[in-house]
């Protein structure tokens, strides 16, 4: 462990994850995040990168290198800054219980990223820079996996992320995952149920990419004549522009799918124009600091027989019909989706209590 960071009080934030995230094994899959204080008493997040036993034999895993390199290269208000990286065998200088642990000679077993402390809903643990060459097939959590990935291609491109983004948007609207399939086939069936049977052009596009499981799926599993249910599914939940936006991201053909720039309404083509209409719709985009947060129900503690909670008491703003800034009953279930790292967590107890509020 590097000297610049001492771990005074390590708290596994994995335990603070909501059940719904746990079901996705977020904490287990991507390592544990600790809260720590650096030498200047700044609160930092300490992420222990997960190294599989089979990876240890080959030194530092390439996934860790990618994650660190990508984080080092990105500077954006919504992306956490990486401050330092510490690596070592065992944890001679790092303890989570005040006592010193000794290296057990197991080879490389600990890599920590020291990051600025902020709420984080996703990481770059499985990210890599795009290059036009065969890439690892079967990536992405199955619920958010695009059709071409489900059909086994290794020739995909950044459009797979736009598909996932579309599904995350629907999840924010519904407060539940839209397509929670268990297997690739089931996932594809759910997509067909939502978007309808893919057109011959879309099938041809998937075939051109090189999807090895496409023929068998078409032959054995693909239902014919299913209609697009996207509008019917979402028009009662949100606006027409939102449905159009989601539809732009959820396209069978990756080349038809909106690009990130188009989704951000950058550019002058038709897709960017449609996206711009969505961005102009109320509620408008607001500064990150003005965004509401939710108390994390699992952070609650019992004090004096009453459940109290640390965190902020701002309320939800959902982009949707008649829902501007209002907290609907449905919105309340969003609580389980938000990490509340509660920056007062390591302050004195008295200070903390003043910032707590009751759970509604």
């Amino acid at each position, binding site marked *: 462990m590097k000297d610049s960071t001492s771990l005074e009080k390590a708290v596994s934030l994995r335990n603070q994850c909501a059940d719904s995230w746990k079901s996705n094994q977020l904490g287990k899959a991507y390592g544990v995040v600790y809260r720590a204080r650096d030498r200047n008493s700044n609160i930092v997040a300490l992420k222990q990168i997960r190294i599989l036993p089979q990876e240890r034999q080959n*030194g530092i895993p*390439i996934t860790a290198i990618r994650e660190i390199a990508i984080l080092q290269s990105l500077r954006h208000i919504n992306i956490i800054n990486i401050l330092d990286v510490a690596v070592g065998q065992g944890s001679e200088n790092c303890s989570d219980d005040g006592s010193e642990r000794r290296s057990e000679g197991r*080879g490389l077993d600990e890599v920590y990223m020291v990051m600025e402390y902020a709420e984080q809903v996703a990481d770059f643990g499985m990210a890599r820079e795009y290059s036009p060459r065969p890439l690892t097939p079967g990536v992405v959590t199955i619920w958010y996996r695009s059709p071409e990935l489900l059909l086994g291609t290794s020739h995909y491109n950044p459009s797979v992320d736009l598909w996932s983004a579309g599904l995350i948007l629907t999840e924010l609207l519904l407060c539940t995952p839209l397509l929670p399939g268990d297997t690739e086939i089931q996932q594809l069936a759910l997509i067909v149920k939502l978007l309808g049977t893919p057109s011959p052009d879309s099938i041809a596009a998937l075939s051109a990419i090189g999807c090895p499981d496409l023929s068998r799926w078409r032959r054995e599993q693909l239902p014919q004549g299913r209609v697009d249910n996207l509008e019917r599914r979402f028009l009662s939940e949100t606006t027409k522009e939102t449905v159009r936006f989601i539809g732009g991201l959820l396209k069978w053909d990756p080349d038809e799918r909106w690009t990130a720039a188009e989704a951000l309404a950058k550019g002058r083509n038709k897709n960017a124009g449609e996206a711009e209409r969505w961005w102009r719709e109320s509620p408008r985009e607001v500064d990150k600091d003005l965004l509401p947060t939710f108390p994390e129900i699992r952070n609650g503690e019992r004090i004096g027989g009453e459940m109290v909670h640390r965190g902020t008491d701002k309320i939800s703003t959902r982009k949707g019909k008649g829902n501007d800034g209002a907290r609907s009953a449905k919105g309340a279930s969003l609580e389980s989706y938000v990490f509340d790292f509660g920056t007062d967590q390591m302050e004195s107890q008295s200070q903390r209590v003043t910032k707590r509020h009751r759970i509604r």
Partner: protein
Amino acid sequence: MAAQVPIPEPSDTISFMTILADVLRLPEETLAMAFMYMNRYRKYYRTTEEIDFLDAHTLALASLSLSSKGTESPRRLREFLLPAYRLLHGSNPHAHPLTFPSELYDSLRATIVQAELMLLRVLKFELRIPLPFEFLPRYLDRTVGELNVGGGGWLGTEDYDGMGKEQRDEYKVARLMETGIARACKAEIVTALQSYQLANYFPARTIAAACLYVTLREKGLRVTQSVGSWLEEVTGGRVDAGDFHDVVAELEQNKAGR
């Protein structure tokens, strides 16, 4: 024991890394990056009072292993260790081949893992160091590529670089970076980064421009204008002329010394 077959025997660390990169079919970018890491590591220990525990071959292997990951051409440690051991000990008639699994293998592997960590610390995890290769395509385009474009009344050629894959395959059209000058230039860059001075003290774009300049001269292609204005045109004025001349001088000095 099988009959001895003639394998090339490396005379120094550079040749050891070069042959190993070829054995593992690593791209030149990976080898160049490994030289970069190795030189950064050496610089660190030359400028601090810390004790350097790594021997030259361990550092070479760790640099190559790490650069293979940093440049997205990963190879397992076993793939490095087995040929590396043979390269270093194959000519000794009393040496036993490295086998897997074995205690010796485990020990060597643990050494390389440890060396990787030391290298990572020195590099501060900044593994994506800009290499001169990045600048080469545009510099080549502004020299060789100018003949394709035409201008000032001179006619150009077919737009070879704009051709689709099918047409390119049908007429066997080489990409700009696969042409003779480009390949010679890339080899020059790999050689340049073996130099402690060049790898540590000069920007990648300066090395790229100097390597192109030296390669053109070696191919019998003269720069018809002054070197200063050539440099200005090719690099868009982003390379310091003094640095450029220093790199050219170092490249030529290294060539004379070989």
